[in-house]
């Protein structure tokens, strides 16, 4: 179930997968997919299950089908390493979709922008639409609301009876929102919560405001 949230008078939908949808612009935002990571590990002799490769594409299909965006924007770390065989799968995937694609590049995105260009994907270091400022690494800019990734945020919850849970989350401050990592083969990083933060935790099926 999606969580509907208004930021700067704009409605956004928070999806349990970590994707963020901006209905007015029909724009889907996805961060830290880390395609190619499984293959990269396997090339170096670590036998991560190969079935995981397909899983990322299935997840991408799922959110594309649900929101049918006209614009898909990756907020960095789309591809984990230099080119490997997963690039071909990515090419096929992009070819099967319509609409515009943008990549706001991240620290892992070392593949030449020309390769992306040949698929019709525009690479850029930052992206401004109205008063929203999209980056990979969280970056504040005065008068703007920053939407970013990079951190793979998670939150630690604790309850009575010494219970505790760790969950990936959308991490919001007054002028910033950090998206959880979308990729299936990525870790998380627990962020300390301050009083002006809002946390939206992702379970398998729901996004819950904490």
């Amino acid at each position: 179930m999606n969580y509907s949230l208004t930021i700067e008078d704009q409605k956004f939908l928070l999806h349990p997968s970590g994707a963020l949808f901006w209905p007015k612009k029909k724009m889907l935002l996805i961060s830290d997919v880390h395609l190619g990571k499984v293959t990269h590990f396997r090339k170096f002799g670590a036998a991560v299950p190969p079935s995981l490769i397909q899983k990322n594409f299935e997840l991408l299909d799922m959110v594309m089908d649900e929101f049918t965006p006209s614009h898909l924007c990756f907020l960095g770390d789309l591809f984990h390493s230099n080119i490997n065989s997963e690039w071909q799968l990515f090419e096929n995937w992009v070819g099967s979709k319509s609409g515009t694609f943008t990549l706001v590049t991240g620290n892992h995105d070392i593949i030449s922008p020309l390769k992306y260009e040949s698929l019709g994907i525009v690479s850029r270091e930052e992206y401004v639409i109205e008063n929203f400022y999209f980056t990979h690494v969280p970056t504040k800019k005065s008068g703007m609301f920053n939407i970013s990734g990079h951190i793979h945020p998670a939150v630690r919850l604790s309850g009575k009876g010494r219970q505790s849970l760790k969950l990936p989350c959308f991490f919001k401050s007054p002028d910033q929102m950090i998206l959880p990592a979308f990729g299936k083969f990525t870790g998380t990083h627990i962020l300390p919560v301050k009083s002006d933060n809002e946390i939206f935790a992702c379970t398998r099926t729901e996004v819950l405001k904490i």
Partner: protein
Amino acid sequence: MQEDSLYKIAENWFEDQGWHPFPFQRKTWAAFLKGKHGLLNAPTGSGKTYALWFPIVLNYIRDNPDYKERHKKGLKAVWITPLRALSQEIKQSAERVTRDLGTSLTVGIRTGDTTTRERAQQRKIMPDLLITTPESLQLLLATKGYASIFKDCTAIVIDEWHELLGTKRGVQVELGLSRLKTISPKLRIWGISATIGNLEQARQVLLGPESVAYHRSVLIKADLKKKITVRSIIPKEMETFPWRGHLGIRLLDEVIPILKSSKTTLLFTNTRSQCEIWFQKILERYPEFAGEIAMHHGSIDKDTRLWVEQAIRNESLTAVVCTSSLDLGVDFAPVETVIQIGGPKGVARFFQRAGRSGHRPGQESVIYFLPTHAIELIEASALQKALRTQTVEDRMPYLNSFDVLVQYLITLAVSDGFHPDQIYPEIAQTFCYQGMSEEQWHWLLNFIVLGSQSLQSYDEYKKVDVDDTGLLKVTNRGIAMRHRFQIGTIVGDANLSVRYQKGGYIGSIEEWFISKLNPGDVFTFAGKNLEFIRIREMQVLVRKSRKRTNKIPSWMGGRLTLSSEMSKLLREELYTANAASSNQSLEIASLEHIFKQQKRESIVPNPDQFLIESFQTSEGYHHILYPFEGRFVHEAMGSLLGYRISLLQPITFSLAFNDYGFELLSDKEVDISAVIDNNLFTTDYLLEDLQKSLNATEMARRRFRDIAVISGLVFSGYPKKGIKMKHLQSSSQLLFDVFRDYEPDHLLFQQAFRETFEHQLEEGRLRLAMERIAGQEIVWKKCKQPTPFSFPIITDRLSRERLSSEPMEDRIRRMAARLMKK
């Protein structure tokens, strides 16, 4: 040369020293020279090294009658020790023999401490006698042309085999031996073990259960009777002695007279942090001991450790505070007294520590037991009984450790490559893999060659290649290099080295401890107060500090648990609490006021009673059950019962265990009468329920961590080299989730569950315990406040297990209200 004249050489040597060979030494010489394999059961300090170095050298003399004039180079014998700290000691005794008998045999050491230069020299010419560790033996098998190194090897000795037996390093040794049996035709395999319950099995594991070697082997027992006296240190003011705790510092003053009246005293602590604290506190309160006491544990820099060991021999120290690091090897004649702080959790270990004192044959061993909390006195009392009845526990060997096998196969692929058909029979002969099926074998081969069970398009997996002849070989240099680094990582956590900023190595410390520190924090390590500056390339940089601190690194280490024999003794001791004081031991009698307090709120159970207590605190609802069966059985029973209760109602538990009982803690109350009415203690569907409960807890996940590292699924970086391989780092936790969700039948994933079952939960023992409980009356006490029995359990904050049958979303909603905002 005739055997008689060979023995004469040895006998003469002993005579020259003014010694007499023990019967077990003579028996071992004879068996060895007849070409037999064997297991020698002899305690530390009994002359076991001479029992085996002698026949190795005598055999060389027999084969080379002109040994005084000519010296044939090349490896003749390998001595494996689990602790590289012991290698110097072993080398010295070997050199004494080789030199005094007039041979030119050379003795060398090859461990993680050996320099690259020395290694390279050894590769050119191996020493005649090589002292090494299980890991370094494995590394030798990863060198090109290893078969020629071992071709004339006549003996391999596995020292302290009981320490390796129940571990994966033991499996590593089993595999190494399976290869050596083929490439060293003249090899004799000998193990040396302290007394354990399953000595006969220890021999099978060493040699292979149905192997030719096993049928040509002997078990020799030293049978050195030793008088051991145990004295409990009973607090003078029992009323104020704490109900919980693990340090024992309260009794520090009682220890001082013992130290002062004895020549050299060893104080054994159970953890390195406890060791640090005791050392610190003695000096704080009794500064006059400065320079007379020292500290010894596994994380302290090697030179310091060697210095301490030497100082014990020179009798220049009054006392040494130590951990299990001084359990093995090293002969310290001058030790007069041993103090055990806190329960040793094992009879064999306790005996061995006791044996550290009065080391000379015929001398009496004295060991003091210092309790860290009141209930531990029951343990002291039970230990004395164990001593009288000679009860010793088993060390359970591993079965089908596929992670170690994967590592071994890649090791062989890295050096000369291997043909599966040739290696399979060797492996199938080992104890560990005797039950491995052909399917599993093929699965493993697929795993190392394809990285999965079927060839996938677009796959770029690279590890082991197959050439035209069917030889499996690693051709990629990077993979070979990473594998060699990985071999040493079979034990433990990620360790960082601690150094002064200006240089100078102090020791190594577990990463998770450092991760809790902020720059500027002061912590105690190696007896020094250190200020944490920063981490640079796997090194913790520190400077000396004058600030006081209460941060002391703790090491997770292996948690020990009571054996079933010891648990039984413990229960029996406890039941005497209800007996007449004339039938009570000193320890039990001293606990009178604790039992009184216990009886005020609850009861002290009789043999026919099973006690359950429940009470509420600010933390939630506590439910404590007391089977008195040892920690592992409690872990199993706790998760089993937690799981069964969670079927009655959606509930989330936090579980804690100790050797006496376990706790189910929840934010909801459990109706214990419903537990009894629904017969939740039944042994029906025991296995199924236990398996399901495992999925609900995190135990297997923790087991998976080691498996992932050993099998090379995760790469831990280059230790000490400080080379970061960030792009290749992933956590075993993440991998565990990935396997659970996408490849649950993966053999290495399954292994985590199997190991939890076989080595942690001990299903067999659980069943027996449940059957015993079935014959008991369940007594449920609703208490107003925590009882003395419950106290050590409910205050355990470290090692808790979790289990839940509630929808995650519900739990989040409840917790959400409690999120602490800063």
